[in-house]
């Protein structure tokens, strides 16, 4: 009567790996990305080859990369953070202010302050969501308005110009280490750290469990409130770092800084295979999604598609991605059903 049970897979570890790879969303998106870059390079060689091209290819996505990582951590817990764009703007301005008001303040300190500040903003969201038991979408929509308003009110009309920030800091925006831009390196380090935590640390797995079934997580005795809070803090901290990046890369911080990045971050995660209702998806996927989104924006003009159509393409891509997910999961369900049948007829 054990035939009610699912038989163990007869696959070897390698077979499993290969199969997994073929099925994995990360790989699929990555392939698209590579293809895109290839086409663009054929069309105009220095898109990839020119040292500028190479650098920009890597450095331009770094800001969205950070945001996508943070957004993923939050989405995995079945929440969302719409305030990251405003957080970027606010932190970027704070960074500029620091340099203006505290001349000679070490860059590392500024970066840390930026992250801490972002984390604090994230904490506000987290407290409201985890303790206030109010939906994240609404809360972060509200804080999105609030943070940006505070930013613009505080900044008033004096914006930060390249001249206001030490050249050492600005050089960060372009400096390269083994041809890899520093900002990209930092972002990738963050990616690896978060990716590692989500995969290999208990609290990381607990985030997945919480998003997978919050009720069960509570019944199981997981520290749901604390974990959700933590997720928002991480998201905020990464957004804060993104703000630092913004100041370093663009050299000026004006009213528009970081506007509308929030939806892009969510889109990147979704394209990267992160389920909007939590429980599944990886930061790796989200990262590739971010690279893809940014690269598309840069490639389409090269392919002769005017600026204006870019968003249309991106939108189509997002819809395609979620639709694909749905199709695949339906396929899997059917296979599982079949498996149950086979198990039964096996007796």
């Amino acid at each position, binding site marked *: 009567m054990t035939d009610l049970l699912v038989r163990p897979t007869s696959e070897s570890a390698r077979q499993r790996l290969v199969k997994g790879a073929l099925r994995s969303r990360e790989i699929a998106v990555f392939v698209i990305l590579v293809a895109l870059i290839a086409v663009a390079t054929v069309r*105009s*060689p*220095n*898109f990839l080859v*020119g*040292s*500028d*091209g190479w650098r*920009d290819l890597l450095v*331009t996505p770094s800001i969205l990369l950070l945001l996508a990582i943070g957004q993923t951590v939050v989405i995995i817990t079945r929440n969302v953070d719409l305030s990251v764009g405003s957080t970027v703007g606010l932190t970027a301005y704070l960074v500029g202010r620091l340099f203006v008001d505290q001349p000679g303040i070490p860059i590392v300190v500024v970066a840390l302050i930026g992250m801490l500040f972002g984390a604090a903003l994230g904490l506000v969201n987290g407290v409201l969501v985890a303790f206030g038991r109010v939906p994240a979408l609404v809360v972060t929509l509200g804080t999105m308005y609030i943070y*940006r308003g505070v930013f*613009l009110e505080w*900044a*008033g*009309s*004096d*914006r930060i*110009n*390249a*001249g206001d920030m030490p050249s050492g800091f600005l*050089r960060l*925006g*372009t400096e390269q280490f083994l041809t890899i831009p520093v900002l990209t390196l930092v972002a990738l380090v963050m990616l690896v750290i978060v990716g590692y935590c989500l995969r290999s640390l208990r609290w990381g797995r607990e985030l997945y469990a919480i998003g997978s079934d919050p009720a069960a997580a509570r019944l199981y005795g997981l520290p749901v409130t604390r974990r959700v809070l933590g997720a928002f803090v991480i998201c905020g901290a990464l957004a804060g770092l993104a703000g630092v990046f*913004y100041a370093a*890369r*663009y*050299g*000026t*911080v*004006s*009213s*528009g*800084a970081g*506007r509308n990045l929030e939806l892009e971050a969510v889109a990147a995660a979704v394209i990267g295979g992160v389920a909007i209702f939590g429980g599944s998806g990886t930061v790796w996927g989200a990262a590739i999604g971010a690279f893809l989104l940014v690269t598309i*924006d*840069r490639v389409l*003009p*090269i392919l002769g598609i005017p*600026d*204006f159509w870019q968003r249309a393409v991106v939108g189509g891509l997002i819809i395609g991605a979620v639709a694909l997910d749905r199709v695949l999961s339906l396929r899997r369900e059917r296979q599982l059903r079949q498996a149950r049948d086979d198990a039964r007829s096996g007796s």
Partner: protein
Amino acid sequence: GGDDDGGSGGGGGSAEITLLPKNLGNPYFDASRTGAEKAAGEFDGEVTEVGPDQAAPDAQVSYINTAAQQGVGALVVSANDPTAICDALNEARDAGVKVVTFDSDTDPECRDVFVNQADAQGIAKAQVDLIAEQIGDKGKVAILSAAANATNQNAWIKLMEEEIAANHPNIELVDTVYGDDDDQKSFDETAALLSRYSDLAGIISPTTVGIAAAARYLSTSEQKGKVALTGLGTPDQMRAYIKDGTVTSFALWNPEDLGYLAAYTAEALINDDITGEEGDTFEAGELGEYTVGADGGVLLGEPFVFDETNIDDFNF
């Protein structure tokens, strides 16, 4: 000057002027506000700056309506859209508000006077000449503009195209991209331009945000010095790039003077010194006397060219 009879204005008491830039937090308009406030100080008027946080016409309309309800003396506005805010402006005028446009005009029938920083022809020619001189009058050039619908930028671009076609046969205008007066977008568009056209000779950016972002990118690029960059920028933003040789020269009028003149024009309208008729003349404080030209235009002057020899003499 209206200092003596400042009381007779529609604003009641001193001349109440509402300054409505395209959007808040834009240094160019901050400069013109400084000018306007200076002027107001002189004829003891009162300048309030209001505006949307994003350069969108519909948002601007709400502020125009508000000004109409408040019954301010005059509204000094830089239009985000030549038509979209037209009716709102006319309603304001019906409510007795004098309307002065500056920097970016609306359709002439929607305002009393347009204070023109420099006539479009002159601006277009100045920028084309600058780029031509910098690239040896031949090669591919691209334009990095502001919002796709920005009135004045689009007008200048059109004139620049004509100018190039007419007088610079060897210059090819290969592309026009839009940075939406947003640092990040302008910056990334510049990067895209350079990777798209490996043999690009120069970039014209007829907007202060655009040229600064482009300069910021070029200064860090291997193309620095190879690709010429000019356009319209503020000295404060560009000083660093003039000094490090990214940019040799760029043009602009003095936005402070522009605001100053706009404020005096408004005051003159409030006091009925002028009606906006061609030929009206008025005193604009230290800038001297100005005359209203064809369809209500007041011309500030020719664009001024900044380069390393003179850039340090300015801060705005």
